[in-house]
């Protein structure tokens, strides 16, 4: 037995959606992070809560990439594939690197499971030689778990639920990790069932010890801590970060956060997180439908709260009319869209970036809405915070875009101190009217924002609505010239936001050159990795990642024109590219993947090489 040093490792835990795969993966993640590795994760699970057992459709996966170097993606291909059954192997074997390790629960390869995974009669991949180019470690996890728990007094079903702890313990052994964090977790998780704490800890240790005692020649690996910036870190998922960003913004603005929403994958975790923090004065409202979710938030904003609503594409479609209302009312509102595969119900648990055009244009009439998109799990904190800032400063609905990949993905986060966050100065309109002067609810300030006069303010009683309104007075007006003026004013207000957002920065590469990769949203990690490697290989390529999609930063056009070619990779059929071509008249090229999966960095690197030929 020897210990091999690795710079980075990609592990996929895969099994039935009831096998506790997500838990196993997130436990390893926390332990690796606490150790000081850089890490990126990507859970991949079926839409069904308990999809048919043993089938390919029911395979749940948790991919994690950790290293002693900086990590930007969950990894292109696996070094280690942990499979609880035959279906999990069949579904994922293609992405295992040659020479990679397979840890297989042999009990999951019995004739029944082989049949469910649709292997031909009599074929078992563990024994037919088809896995020759890999290192296969077969362990009868079920049997060992049951043996370990023989005198625990638990029933077979309950014993089998600890199988994932055996696997976790074994992988901990493989990477020489401490069990402490997971033992603490189990103690907390099963506070009310001491027997289950004992059982799970016992199986976890059994997994670890199995590595030591088994006679098979098995290597262990060492992955040293990563040389990341000094500071204090935590692990964060995108939806959690978004929830924290919203709470932080409300706190910094001195407002009540009102979150009106309707459960939908993959946005619901924001609701779950927010509803835990009522001691921040957060009011979460699970409405009867998507429309009530947004209109209740509009009502709350009208009353002086920070109104936020969230959904995914199908729900956003239902909110369209109300977004138009918020825009006409000119009140602050943040609309979170955690994108998933579309159209219609589409791919509920898979990722996609196909709602950009919906955010930009998906309403009746001339209805400009600012759009902010985050690009990593931790950036969701800043993105959500920034969306709130724009909504409050400019009295407008603002879109915050995230997607399934970063929403459920996690990474270490060098989190900010509350004091470092900017104050959001909100001042409700006061009655400073002179005798005989009437209140003008649509009189604008230098940012073209109107006053936020909330009910309860004596003397500022006024009416607002979705009908076109007269400039300044806000009274109903069907006057042709007034309508044109109001449409232009609402557009101008959004355009002027460009003066109040940061200029576009290059993420990597030279300011002028042959090729710029322009990305947005969750493609960040893959593009960053690909561009880094391409530059290291001597290619003339740069990377910029747009966070403000409406309006664009003022210098974006000039930046694009400094490059001979522009490539825009997107997890859609080409959306940002349409807007960029329209606005800047450049012949940008697209790289599009629409498989419900993120790009691998290799896919982007290949395209870079092709374009630089």
């Amino acid at each position, binding site marked *: 037995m020897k210990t091999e040093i690795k710079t980075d490792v990609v592990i996929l835990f895969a099994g039935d959606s009831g096998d506790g795969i997500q838990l196993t993966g997130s436990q390893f993640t926390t332990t690796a992070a606490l150790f000081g590795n850089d890490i990126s994760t990507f859970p991949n699970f079926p839409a069904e809560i308990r999809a048919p057992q043993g089938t390919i459709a029911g395979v749940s996966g948790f991919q994690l990439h950790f290293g002693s170097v900086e990590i930007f993606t969950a990894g292109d291909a696996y070094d280690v594939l942990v499979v609880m059954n035959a279906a999990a192997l069949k579904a994922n074997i293609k992405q295992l690197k040659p020479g990679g390790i397979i840890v297989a629960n042999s009990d999951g390869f019995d004739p029944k499971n082989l049949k469910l995974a649709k292997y031909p009669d009599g074929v078992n991949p563990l024994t037919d030689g088809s896995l020759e180019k890999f290192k296969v470690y077969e362990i009868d996890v079920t049997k060992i778990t049951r043996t370990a728990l023989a005198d625990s007094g638990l029933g077979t079903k309950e014993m089998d639920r600890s199988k994932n702890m055996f696997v976790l313990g074994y992988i901990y052994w493989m990477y020489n990790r401490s069990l402490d964090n997971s033992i603490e977790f189990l103690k907390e998780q099963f506070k009310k069932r001491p027997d289950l704490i004992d059982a799970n800890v016992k199986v976890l240790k059994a997994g670890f010890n199995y590595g030591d005692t088994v006679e098979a020649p098995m290597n262990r690996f060492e992955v040293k801590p990563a040389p990341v910036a*000094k500071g204090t870190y935590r692990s964060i998922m995108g939806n959690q970060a978004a929830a924290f960003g919203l709470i932080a913004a409300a706190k910094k603005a001195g407002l009540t956060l009102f979150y009106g929403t309707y459960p939908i994958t993959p946005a619901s975790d924001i609701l779950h997180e927010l509803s835990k923090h*009522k*001691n921040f*004065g957060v009011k979460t409202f699970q409405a009867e439908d998507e429309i009530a979710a947004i*209109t209740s938030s509009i009502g709350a904003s009208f*009353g002086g709260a920070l109104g936020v609503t969230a959904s995914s594409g199908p729900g956003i479609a239902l909110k369209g009319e109300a977004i138009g209302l918020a825009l006409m009312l000119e009140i602050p509102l943040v609309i979170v869209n955690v994108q998933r595969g579309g159209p219609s119900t589409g791919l509920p648990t898979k990722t996609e970036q196909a709602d950009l055009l919906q955010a930009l244009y998906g309403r009746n009439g001339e209805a400009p809405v600012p759009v902010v998109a985050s690009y990593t799990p931790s950036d969701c904190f800043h993105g959500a915070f920034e969306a709130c800032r724009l909504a409050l400063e400019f009295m407008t609905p603002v879109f915050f875009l995230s997607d399934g990949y970063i929403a459920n993905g996690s990474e270490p986060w060098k989190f900010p101190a509350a004091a470092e966050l900017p104050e959001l100065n909100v001042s409700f309109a006061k009655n400073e009217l002179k005798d005989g002067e009437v209140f003008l609810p649509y009189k604008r300030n230098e940012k073209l924002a109107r006053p936020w006069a909330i009910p309860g303010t004596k003397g500022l009683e006024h*009416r607002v609505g979705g009908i076109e309104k007269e400039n300044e007075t806000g009274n*109903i007006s069907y006057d042709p010239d007034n309508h044109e003026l109001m449409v232009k004013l609402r557009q101008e207000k959004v355009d002027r936001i460009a003066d109040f957002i940061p200029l576009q920065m290059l993420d990597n590469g030279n300011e002028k050159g042959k090729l710029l990769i322009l990305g947005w949203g969750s493609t960040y990690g893959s593009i960053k990795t690909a561009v880094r490697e391409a530059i290291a290989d001597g290619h003339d390529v740069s990377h910029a990642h747009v966070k403000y999609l409406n309006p664009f930063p003022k210098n974006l056009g000039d930046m694009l024109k400094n490059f001979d070619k522009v490539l825009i990779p997107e997890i859609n059929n080409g959306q940002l590219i349409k807007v960029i071509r329209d606005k800047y008249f450049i012949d940008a090229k697209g790289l599009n993947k629409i498989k419900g999966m993120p790009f691998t960095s290799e896919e982007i690197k290949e395209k870079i090489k092709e374009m630089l030929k």
Partner: protein
Amino acid sequence: MTTAEIKLTAKDFVTDQEVRWCPGCGDYSILKQVQTVMPDLGIPREQIVFISGIGCSSRFPYYMETYGMHSIHGRATAVASGLKAARPDLSVWIVTGDGDALSIGGNHLIHLLRRNFDVNVLMFNNEIYGLTKGQYSPASPLGKVTKSTPMGSIDHPFNPLALCLGADSTFIARSMDRDPIHLREILKRANAHKGTSMVEIYQNCNVFNDGAFEVFTEKATKKLNTLMVEHAKPLIFGANADKGIKLDGFKPVVVDLADVSVNDLWIHDEKDQVKASILVRFFDAPSDENTLPRPFGVFYTEDRFCYETEMNAQLAYAIETKGAGDLDDLIRGKNTWTI
């Protein structure tokens, strides 16, 4: 909240906007009664908000010198829910119609009622779509000939108050545009009720559905066809108050007071949900023979917790038990590591 030092009058609730309903519309009377009642409620103008959806009735907020929002079709109830959740201190009034509340906004209405936000719903029922120029509504009677139903409507109509009772409404009342005194009384009762007050107001659309309620509103027929219910009083109606309603088991029957003693009549009890469920089913077409009269007044009231009160209680409890939220603690979480 400061109480109005100077006593307000109905005029103080009139805006500078020209009222644009059709001449002769029942909405004028309702607006007048609401403006008349407002000063008596003792609520400062700035604490009052009128929220409406879309339709003729939904222009209402523009004519009330309070805070107001003319929202989108069917959603006034949902907008008001969010407003009340955020601002329990406000007096929130929802103005809606039979199309707005029962058709496009039906879902929000039933959920508002079960949550029992402390708001008031004024549903102007004219049994027609007015603003879109005369299509049948979910409250139009079967067979109704309209622009969209030239051969008569084949849609079984809602019984609006039965629907509301089914959604566990805690205050159900009916009034009419043509009975100002009654309407003002009901508005005051609605305001006084803690919880969602559902008030159906029969309103004549003299352009597209003229006379839909005339048997209930015109002198010649009103007494025979309407039943004005009052708490703890027997159900009596008729040209000379000569008829009554008696319960035969669960079946209401019309009796002649010449034959039956007043003491044997159904005594209205606003707190009795079972009886209220029978009362809301007094819904016969007035033209039918041997019909039950149409009741007006407060059918049912119930004391039940309001959503916004419980929401605030949970927040207060969370702060009491966990302490006011600290942003640094939140962001840091439980597991950190330092490099």
